[in-house]
């Protein structure tokens, strides 16, 4: 452990007088499928801006959600200005004077700006106990709130749906400010803002802090964090690794702390894959979500990793290759049976032997109320069908049975409803879906998300086995050690651009992280 980490537990920002901190967290633990927060201690003084940084999945957003009652900790406690604080919902936390401004915008597109600003129960234009909104007051109130964040030109009557993403983000900030909260929690507040807009926001935050408000500032933009915050805490694997005054920190130190001590990633004994023939070629690919053309190749029998922060365009890249999102330019070609095939649609991709396992299994993967067999065969129904699309049950039974054995899916028979399977078994079934289609190229988005540690290792083994059997894999992951232990090569996306490529021999966690953060400056 680096020496700086020893200061982590003695988190004592602001050597202010003995006044209780605006918010203090003690021993917060939280688990979903895996442990997300371990024994987090944090004290944030009134009148200070406190930065929270860390890799994807380090626990920043979960901690922010716990502070406003969107999640409940498994153990540990919070106190607000010295008094116990146990929010169960955002309406409770708002009453206590804590407001959150989220990454996922929580504005309602079909309502006007003014109506959106009035949604929090404690708004000034809606005095307690009064359900009726007074139009004139609301209008005035909205004008004031908007002026504060530099949106004077916007009319309060305008529908939020017509605003740009940056404007929406500012409205969201305006709404949080307008609640008059004593603690503001901002999760990636500048992700869509231009530099002048971000500067304006930072000025506002400083004004707020000077007026005694405590601010928690979660961001990927390390430069911003260093500039704006008084103190910064680094989270890694759900633990606070470092809390320090920002004067004593630099981007390099933050990246080192986020990456951890084991910065040299464990490399497996695989040889270079440069000699293998190309399987997938992506040239100058562009979509609405990926404005900068992206080109790369994946070779036969290779596991290619895609690293990058959440929102860096990784998921969008896989979707574009698979023909799910509309392309604005570029070519995706696949080498099948000695010839090149251009891919334009999902059906073509599947026919060419490509399969995609989506990040959000619940929404883009499983049919939860249908059986295991249904879920496995759904993308390759022709393979179990006779003439005129008649399904042959015995073929389905034997095909699914073989895959269940091969992938070691645990179930009470092939018609067990999918929702009753564990996350790991569901994920194996998703792999089975594409093996059923005999896919040669697997596009995997966070292949071990939401599965427990043992299942994760088993899935890793499975992927290596599939690769060794001659398939190619493109895997997106937020976990650098996962990429390092699996991949032959890694490409890094940062802010929707492809910024770097790493060969297996040159994998260093710090370099990968530095690349992933590079376009957010």
């Amino acid at each position: 452990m680096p020496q700086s980490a020893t200061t982590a537990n003695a988190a004592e920002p602001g050597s202010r007088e003995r006044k209780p901190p605006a918010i203090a967290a003690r021993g917060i633990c939280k688990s979903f499928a895996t442990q997300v927060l371990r024994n987090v201690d944090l004290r944030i003084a009134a009148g200070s801006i406190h930065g929270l940084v860390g890799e994807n999945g380090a626990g920043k957003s979960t901690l922010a959600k716990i502070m406003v009652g969107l999640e409940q900790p498994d153990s540990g406690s919070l106190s607000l200005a010295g008094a116990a604080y146990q929010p169960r919902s955002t309406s409770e936390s708002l009453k206590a004077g804590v407001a959150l401004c989220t990454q996922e915008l929580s504005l309602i597109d079909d309502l006007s700006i003014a109506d959106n600003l009035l949604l929090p129960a404690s708004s000034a234009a809606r005095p307690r106990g009064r359900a009726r909104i007074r139009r004139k007051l609301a209008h005035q109130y909205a004008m004031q709130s908007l002026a504060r964040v530099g949106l004077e030109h916007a009319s309060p009557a305008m529908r939020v749906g017509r605003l740009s993403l940056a404007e929406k983000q500012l409205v969201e900030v305006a709404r949080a400010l307008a609640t008059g909260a004593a603690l503001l929690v901002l999760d990636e507040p500048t992700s869509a803002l231009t530099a002048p807009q971000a500067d304006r926001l930072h000025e506002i935050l400083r004004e707020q802090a000077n007026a005694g408000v405590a601010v928690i500032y979660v961001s990927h933009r390390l430069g911003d964090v260093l500039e704006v915050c008084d103190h910064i805490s680094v989270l890694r694997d759900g633990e606070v690794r470092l809390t320090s005054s920002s004067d004593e920190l630099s981007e390099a130190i933050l990246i080192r702390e986020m990456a951890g001590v084991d910065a040299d990633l464990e490399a497996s004994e695989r040889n270079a894959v440069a000699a293998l023939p190309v399987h997938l070629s992506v040239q100058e690919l562009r979509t609405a979500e990926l404005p900068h053309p992206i080109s790369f190749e994946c070779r036969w029998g290779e596991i290619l990793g895609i690293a990058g922060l959440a929102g860096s365009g990784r998921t969008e890249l896989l979707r574009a290759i698979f023909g799910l999102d509309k392309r604005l330019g570029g070519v995706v070609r696949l080498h099948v049976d000695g010839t090149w095939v251009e891919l334009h649609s999902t059906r073509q991709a599947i026919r060419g032997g490509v399969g995609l396992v989506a990040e959000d299994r619940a929404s883009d993967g499983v049919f939860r109320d249908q059986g295991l067999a249904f879920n496995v065969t759904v993308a390759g129904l022709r393979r179990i069908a006779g003439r005129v699309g008649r399904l042959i049950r015995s073929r389905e039974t034997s095909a699914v049975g073989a895959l269940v054995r091969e992938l070691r899916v645990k179930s009470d028979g092939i018609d067990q409803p999918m929702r009753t399977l564990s996350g790991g078994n569901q994920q194996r079934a998703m792999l089975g879906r594409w093996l059923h289609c005999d896919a040669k190229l697997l596009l995997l988005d966070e292949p071990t998300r939401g599965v427990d540690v043992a299942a994760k290792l088993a899935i890793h083994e499975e992927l290596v086995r599939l690769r060794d059997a001659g398939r190619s894999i493109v895997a997106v992951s937020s976990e650098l050690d996962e990429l390092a232990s699996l991949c032959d090569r890694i490409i890094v996306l940062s802010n929707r651009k492809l910024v770097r490529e790493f060969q297996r021999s040159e994998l260093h966690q710090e370099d990968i992280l530095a690349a992933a953060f590079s376009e957010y400056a």
Partner: protein
Amino acid sequence: MTAKPTARIVRLFEDNLIFLSLIGIVAFFGLASDRFLSLTTLSTLLNQLPALTVVAIGMTLVLISGAIDLSVGSVLALCAGVVGGCMTLFGMPLPLAAGIGILAGALAGLANGSLGAYLRLPIFIVTLGMLEVARGLAYLVTDSQTVYLGARVQSFAVPIWGIGVSASFLTALALVIAFEYLLRSTVFGRQIVAVGSNESAAEVSGIDPKRVRCTVLVISGALAGLGGLMNASYLGSADPNAGVGMELSAIAAAVIGGTSLMGGRGSVVGAFIGVLIVSVLQIGLAQIGITEPTKRVITGAVIILAVILDRWRADSR
């Protein structure tokens, strides 16, 4: 497979709940009225069923795909009117007129499908609009009059000598079996369930949800067209007021039969039993002297009860 015998019996009971309910209802009316268990009742029942049955088949497929079709009752009347017009105005033989009538229904379904699936308009509203459009067209083609057709069309609906049921009923029964098979055992059936169960996962699996929904709405329209033919042959005339409110009876039958309004789950045979339950209630309640208002209250309560039972069954899994 490894379940205890008692658990298996419970499971068997649960799986066939609606069929058992139907038997229970029949038994109740059999005891309550000495005229109920007779061949006359059975024949009345079976010969008035076909139109609702075929419409309910289409509705079930539409609901399973995660859409809804409110236009079926009006489309049925429109197609009856088209069949009548073809026969009286142009003197076409029945098979040709019937073909054109069914085609008209399919076209109405295609309009629903294209607007709903491809232009992404809310299908509820699109088919609600079609409900008005088709009803209006039905009045236009019949000049707002019931078109008398007589024996030319009734052959389809009269009981066949020796079996006691009509060709119309046999057709409906065959379609129930055919569409149940389509749903359970064909690629297209699986695709319908997949789209209704999780549209975006279906898309990732290479299924085109728009095409599937559009096709299902065309089928529903065509079946409503067939329903129009059946209705016209039953009445011996094309009535522009036919099928008013039939969309609700069809939805009720599908739901009683275990079809989910959220999509992804349902059964055509179940919907047929739903049609039987609704019809048996109508006839049985009338025979034991229940008045029309009370009949409606009871029928409505039965629909809600069916949903409660279905929810309970789904939760107990």
